[in-house]
């Protein structure tokens, strides 16, 4: 009877529904590295940049820290960290070990006063950055339960005095390595295994054709030599097929081919240019640009070329669609009323268009991070065209490249194999 009464009373309690809490970056403190400073400081610097670029964390000012700099990896006074506003704490102890370095990296939950993650990473001294990226990925995975991208690679086109070359770099623009010479090379596209990049090139002197370059060996091979114009490779998620555009009889269409370049099949046959194809993450649909209605607009079609649907109706020049890895958004660039290109997303389900950039130079060629959390793009906001990264709502833009003559055409490589 008493229990029944309690239940009845409970049923009478007023209820308040709360939603719409402010989304805020997680306050994280990074303590001064312990051990060899010539190892720890660079690792901490790379890790800090990763965390700041991620948009997930708010790094606290070390000048505010109350804990003694020599505080160890154990016996931590969490109250002192809590009182400076930290919810999480990163500490590290790095030592040189012959030609290698060994770093003990730890993440602590300050609120609960306990260790959350603990990793020991050994790497050649030249791979210090990778130590930071690896621990950073572990931290992000711990919090988000999603794959992280600090260990991923990107590719882009580097402007040089003698042309444009394909480059591969870390996600933050470091360790940039030229993969090709500098004829006119454009539009890199990674294979899903991250071992090869397809690109469009005028290198053979017979128009634009598609080639591949092996990232490790830099060996270049022809892939599509069809006609005098073949461009814009895009690999299917399974890596077994790829899309490209080719011009035959003065009509540019989207083609589908086997990964080795064989059995090319035309998917579009409308009048006007059909170009810039991008796969949906399930490989069932393709976004592309078509001029069939008089101006370049974004369309989608089934993977066999059927069921064509127009997606954009605003503006008279929309291009470069990139389907998000989560499948819900297609990013694209569109020319606005000031004749400047900016970035937008269109929600696949609702058609809702969101503007991501404005009044910050020309912004083009969006490329999704493989976890869908970031967009890499080219922008002239800082002067020369360079690559920038931001979150898919347009927030937290950060410069990625600082190439002397400029960078463009970004492509984001796949996630590294699971460890």
């Amino acid at each position, binding site marked *: 009877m008493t229990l029944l009464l309690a239940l009845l*009373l*409970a*049923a*009478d*309690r*007023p*209820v*308040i*529904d*709360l*939603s*719409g*809490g*402010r*989304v*805020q*970056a*997680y306050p994280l403190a990074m303590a001064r590295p312990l051990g060899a400073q010539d190892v720890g400081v660079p690792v901490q610097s790379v890790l800090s940049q990763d965390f700041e670029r991620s*948009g*997930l*964390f708010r790094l606290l000012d070390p000048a505010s820290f109350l804990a003694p700099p020599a505080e160890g990896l154990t016996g931590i006074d969490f109250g002192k960290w809590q009182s400076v506003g930290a*919810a999480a704490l990163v500490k590290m102890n790095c030592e040189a070990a012959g030609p290698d370095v060994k770093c003990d990296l730890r993440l602590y939950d300050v*609120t*609960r006063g306990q260790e959350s993650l603990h990793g020991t990473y050994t790497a050649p001294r030249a791979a210090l950055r990778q130590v930071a990226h690896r621990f950073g990925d572990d931290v*992000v995975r711990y*919090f*988000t*339960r*999603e794959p992280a991208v600090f260990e991923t690679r990107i590719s882009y086109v580097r402007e040089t005095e003698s042309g444009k070359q394909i480059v591969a770099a870390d996600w933050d623009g470091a360790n940039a390595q030229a993969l090709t010479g500098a004829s006119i090379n454009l539009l890199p596209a990674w294979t899903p295994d991250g071992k090869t990049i397809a690109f469009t090139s005028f290198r053979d002197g017979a128009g634009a054709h598609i080639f591949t370059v092996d990232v490790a060996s830099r060996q270049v091979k022809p892939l599509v030599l069809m006609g005098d114009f073949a461009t814009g490779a895009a690999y299917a998620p399974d890596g077994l097929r790829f899309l490209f555009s080719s011009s035959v009889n003065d009509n540019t269409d989207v083609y589908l081919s086997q990964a080795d370049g064989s059995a090319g099949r035309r998917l579009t046959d409308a009048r006007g240019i059909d170009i810039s194809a991008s796969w949906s993450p399930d490989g069932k649909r393709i976004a592309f640009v078509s001029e069939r209605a008089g101006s370049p607009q974004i369309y989608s079609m089934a993977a066999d070329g059927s069921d064509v649907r127009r997606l954009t109706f605003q503006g008279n020049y929309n291009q470069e669609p990139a389907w998000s890895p*989560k499948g819900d958004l297609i990013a694209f660039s569109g020319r606005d009323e000031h004749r400047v290109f900016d970035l937008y997303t269109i929600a696949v389900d609702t058609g809702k268009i969101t503007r991501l950039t404005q009044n910050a130079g020309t912004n083009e060629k969006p490329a999704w991070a493989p976890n869908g959390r970031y967009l890499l793009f080219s922008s002239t906001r800082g002067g020369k065209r360079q690559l920038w990264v931001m979150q898919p709502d347009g927030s937290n833009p950060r410069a990625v490249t600082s190439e002397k003559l400029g960078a463009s055409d970004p492509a984001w490589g796949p996630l590294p194999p699971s460890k």
Partner: protein
Amino acid sequence: MQRALARAAGRAEPVPAEAPDPERAGSATGSASGTAASAEEGDAYFTAVHDAILENYVVPSVISERERLYLSATVLAWIGANGQILKHEFQKKSGNGFFDQALELAIQRTKLPAPPADLARALRDDGVVLNFKP
């Protein structure tokens, strides 16, 4: 359950008719069934509670957007006569420790106004249910 904030939140939810409960009258001199004035006072108070908690309600960005779509948690909070949150307990945790931790922080940081006299006893003894979604 009575949706105390239906009016404040702009949602129209029927309030079930219930018999007056002399045990839950706000004060010895108050009306057990309440009056139009006290109902408005109650709504205003729950709006104030809602707004005060919302002020401190921070969703950590480390929670993925996908997870934010389905997270929810329910907290039962008891409020003292001076507006102090006397205690709180999770009736349902979200399953995400960072979200639950953020709710703990929001409740700890929230300063509430003193409840109106005719709600004070119920809020002290029975509490209020807080349904959180990101």
